[in-house]
């Protein structure tokens, strides 16, 4: 299939344009060899590919290196028909800086290029007009004014793109290799064109600067930052609760409906204990993952995330990190894998390595089910200030904070060690602060739904297999003799000495061991174990079952801290190995975090 590629600088409305052109019929793929998220979708008879944003063809960071390398590959590809270069009409100079470099490169490779002058609605709102015909003439390429937000000019643009791509396919453009480019010419030219056609910067930046006066103030900015972070963690509990209740009720109703149909017997036991008890108890936590993804998405799309990175730069630099480390750290609370990849935006290789190695200490969504279950077991559901502050929410916040503090301390240690000693190649902290914008809801909801889908698809099969395995081992040789006489019971007795110092019996040991595949398995495994135990066949009662079973506060807190620290995710380990290029380093990390986790759990069990 012939291809059209979409390029542009970050924060220029490129993704929204992509959504409008493909109508959300998109799929996410990775570049072969390197994991860079690449969205593609169908546009007419073409495949439209959204390339990661880049500021310049001369690169500073690892993510820019990859983006530019892949753009070059796409330009060499015979199947690439046309390049759409997205420009932010309100910031013509910085957009053209990249756009004109791209144009020169497209010319060098003999590819057709069209400029999409996006966000034209904002230019009109400011009372400014851009002479599009003049700009097109001076650039020597077609330019279309449009707004991916209000859809102004989108229909005309679609028609023009199809026509331009068809023309490019049928013509033989000059493919003679031209000499390498001198970008300084583009730099000067883009400044001249921006002065001639663009908006005055004082108008563009007025609102942004007024909000920043509050958001970046030492006092109000600091308070706003802490408030945003606190609300983020509280909302995981508060907003998600009704949704979680709904999922839980739906699973409960389905379980009793289906087991009523099958009648008592082995099948009913399997459905109740393995399927609904194991897989079901993990599905309950999907709404929390969705809420977390939604809030991080809102922060990112609104432009606040860059401010948060700036606010954190100074404090993080004390620990050998960059302000940019904040973004991987925050997104690691959803999942460590994209966070490790997001560390590519960190300018300094040394700080990037430290960030990647400490990202797994952030509490990802896979830990959420474990935290939620044990917090419900150990902490009373007391509410203060009219229900806004929930004691369980505070405990959650504490666990997340413990992960963050541990990560900072490990960063400090690593930054002073020889492992990351390549200070000479350090790049400085340079960060663009984009405009504040209201997030566009459609792509945000799309992102939230796909986070839930990915979470279920990734962990679901593993949890089902583990639940099935545990159920089989726990049900046989005979279900009548009780769990302790089963195969699982026997295995459990063997490993019990390892978990004894942690104040835990063999059932927790089995669940912890199984969760080295993926952390979420812990809840599913315990659901199956307690289900087979027959204390209560209603999965809603798993927390009550554990409470009734007599898990001590110290041992419970020990499990929690164990899960904060231990690196128990096969996918994260694989990603770390690919990104750091060192199996030894990652192996040492898994071992180190494992030992620290065990030690913390033991101290909790002994002293709390």
């Amino acid at each position: 299939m012939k291809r059209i590629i979409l390029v542009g600088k970050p924060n220029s409305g490129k993704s929204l344009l992509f959504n409008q052109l493909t109508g959300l019929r998109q799929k996410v793929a990775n570049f072969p060899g390197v994991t860079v998220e690449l969205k593609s979708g169908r546009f007419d008879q073409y495949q439209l590919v959204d390339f990661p944003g880049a500021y310049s063809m001369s690169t500073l960071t690892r993510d820019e290196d990859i983006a530019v390398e892949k753009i070059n590959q796409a330009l060499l590809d015979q199947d690439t028909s046309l390049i759409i270069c997205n420009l932010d009409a309100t910031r013509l100079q910085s957009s053209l800086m990249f756009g004109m470099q791209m144009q020169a490169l497209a010319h060098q490779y003999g590819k057709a290029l069209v400029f999409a002058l996006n966000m034209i609605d904002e230019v009109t709102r400011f009372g400014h007009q851009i002479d599009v015909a003049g700009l097109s003439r001076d650039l020597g390429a077609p330019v279309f004014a449009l707004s991916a937000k209000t859809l102004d000019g989108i229909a005309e643009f679609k028609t023009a793109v199809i026509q331009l791509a068809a023309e490019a396919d049928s013509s033989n453009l000059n493919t003679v290799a031209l000499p390498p480019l001198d970008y300084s010419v583009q730099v000067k030219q883009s400044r001249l064109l921006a002065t001639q056609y663009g908006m005055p910067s004082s108008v563009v930046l007025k609102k942004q600067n007024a909000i920043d006066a509050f958001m970046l103030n030492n006092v109000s900015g600091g308070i706003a930052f802490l408030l945003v972070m606190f609300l983020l963690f509280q909302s995981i509990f508060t907003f998600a609760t009704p949704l979680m209740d709904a999922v839980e009720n739906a699973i409960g109703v389905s379980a009793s409906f289906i087991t009523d149909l099958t009648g008592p017997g082995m099948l009913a036991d399997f459905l109740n204990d393995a399927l609904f008890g194991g897989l079901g108890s993990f599905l309950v936590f999907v709404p929390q993952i969705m809420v977390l993804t939604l809030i991080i998405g809102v922060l990112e799309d609104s432009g606040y995330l860059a401010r948060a990175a700036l606010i954190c730069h100074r404090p993080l630099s004390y620990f050998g990190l960059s302000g940019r480390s904040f973004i991987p750290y925050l997104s690691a609370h959803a999942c460590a894998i994209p966070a490790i990849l997001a560390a590519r935006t960190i300018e300094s290789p040394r700080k990037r390595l430290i960030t990647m190695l400490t990202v797994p200490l952030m509490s990802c969504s896979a830990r959420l089910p474990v935290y939620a279950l044990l917090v419900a077991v150990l902490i009373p559901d007391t509410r203060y200030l009219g229900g806004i502050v929930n004691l369980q929410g505070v405990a959650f916040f504490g666990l997340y904070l413990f992960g963050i503090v541990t990560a900072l301390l490990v960063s400090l240690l690593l930054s002073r060690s020889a492992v990351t000693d390549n200070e000479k190649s350090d790049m400085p902290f340079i960060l663009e602060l984009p405009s504040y914008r209201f997030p566009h809801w459609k792509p945000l909801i799309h992102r939230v739904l796909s986070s839930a889908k990915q979470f279920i698809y990734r962990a679901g099969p593993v949890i089902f297999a583990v639940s099935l395995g545990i159920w089989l081992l726990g049900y046989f040789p005979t279900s009548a003799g009780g769990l302790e006489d089963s195969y699982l019971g026997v295995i459990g007795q063997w490993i019990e000495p390892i978990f004894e110092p942690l104040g835990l019996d063999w059932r927790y040991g089995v669940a912890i061991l199984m969760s080295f595949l993926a952390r979420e398995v812990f809840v599913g495994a315990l659901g199956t174990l307690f289900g087979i135990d027959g204390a209560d066949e209603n999965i809603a009662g798993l927390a009550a079952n554990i409470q009734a079973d007599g898990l001590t506060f110290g041992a419970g807190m020990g499990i929690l801290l164990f899960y904060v620290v231990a690196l128990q995710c096969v996918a994260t380990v694989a990603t770390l190995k690919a990104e750091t290029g060192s199996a030894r380093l990652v192996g040492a990390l898994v071992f180190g975090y494992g030992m620290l986790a065990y030690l913390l759990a033991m101290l909790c069990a002994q002293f709390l």
Partner: protein
Amino acid sequence: MMSLWDTAGGQTVTVTTLDAGLDQAVSSRLREMGLDNGLPVLCLRRGPFNGALVVAIADCVYSLEQKVASKIRVKPL
């Protein structure tokens, strides 16, 4: 000579030179951003907690840490 790091919030200055000690890739990015000889820069504020500097260059706002801002030579407008 005064560097960009020495500017006060609200002050507009003109770039004179970029220190030779800066990495080639960094200098070229700074020039592309508009930190080039004779071009104006508005210092919006000192960053929170004395962190990175916040400056308006052409149509964008950037934050730059001391390590780089102190290597950009400027003079008052």
